[in-house]
């Protein structure tokens, strides 16, 4: 299915958000996720199915002021 991952359209299998993270090599990484603009807690990733056209944001710690 086509997912907008961090602003880029990607073909991801899913079916869950956790599966998609594993597919892009971030299954174990320290990241946070938002699905279609809403926070998706880590504990909910495995139980949340992706669907075609979803927008997934995956963020990580970064420099800030």
């Amino acid at each position: 299915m086509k997912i907008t991952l961090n602003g880029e359209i990607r073909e991801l299998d899913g079916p869950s958000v956790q599966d998609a993270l594993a597919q892009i090599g971030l299954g174990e990484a320290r990241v946070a996720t938002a699905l279609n603009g809403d926070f998706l807690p880590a504990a909910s990733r495995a139980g949340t199915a992706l669907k075609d056209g979803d927008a997934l944001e995956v963020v990580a710690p970064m420099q800030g002021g």
Partner: protein
Amino acid sequence: MPVFYGTEIDSALMLGTALYPSPAIMADAFRASQAGIATVSLRREGGQGQDFHRLIKDLNVAVLPNTAGCHSVREAVTTAQMAREVFDTPWIKLEVIRDDDTLCPDVIALVEAAKILSDDGFQVFPYCTEDLSVCGRLLDAGCEVLMPWGAPIGSGRGLNNPYGLRSVRAHFPDVPLVVDAGIGLPSHAAQAMELGFDAVLLNTAVAKAGDPVAMARAMAMAIQAGQFAYAATPIEARDMAAPSTPVFGKAVLG
């Protein structure tokens, strides 16, 4: 030393982690500054996030994630929720911006987001203006810290409105206050502390200095000087001279 939401911090300097020439220089600057809090952010994972998190952990300071770049209540709230999970802290430096030229806080959206987050258990550090009504509204919303700007972020102009900042101090004597943003020189940081502020948050002034580590040390010394000066109760300025050497006893010589 400042106490934020029940946590006492050993330093009145809060230092940002962005814009340094290298991670090693950032780490050295932190050591030189003796800052007790590091501000951090969240950005799309492009491969560097995991290393950065290890670097921050090694600094051994409290971490204050921000919502920098957020332009709406929804964006800021979602970012805060993600930050709480990634950094494992209820602290959030809440920034909601409307105007990109000044990075002036959108105080209306700020108060709304502060209320949502405080009700959700966050401990909010709002980046705000020195407007007394806005500051009061933020306290009503549940904030127990206020962080009015000194000048626009990254401008290095110092304290644009010392009168306004002094008013905030006078109106909210028991609220921890931080001057956040606009500091360019150690003298600016010292001035903030002389006004009775509890801490100073800066980033660009150190990170973009020719020698960030030396500037970090200079900031630390200035902040300590300002802190000591405020505690020592400075004299009031006056318009007329007042001789310090006794007039009585002066020889009459002509």
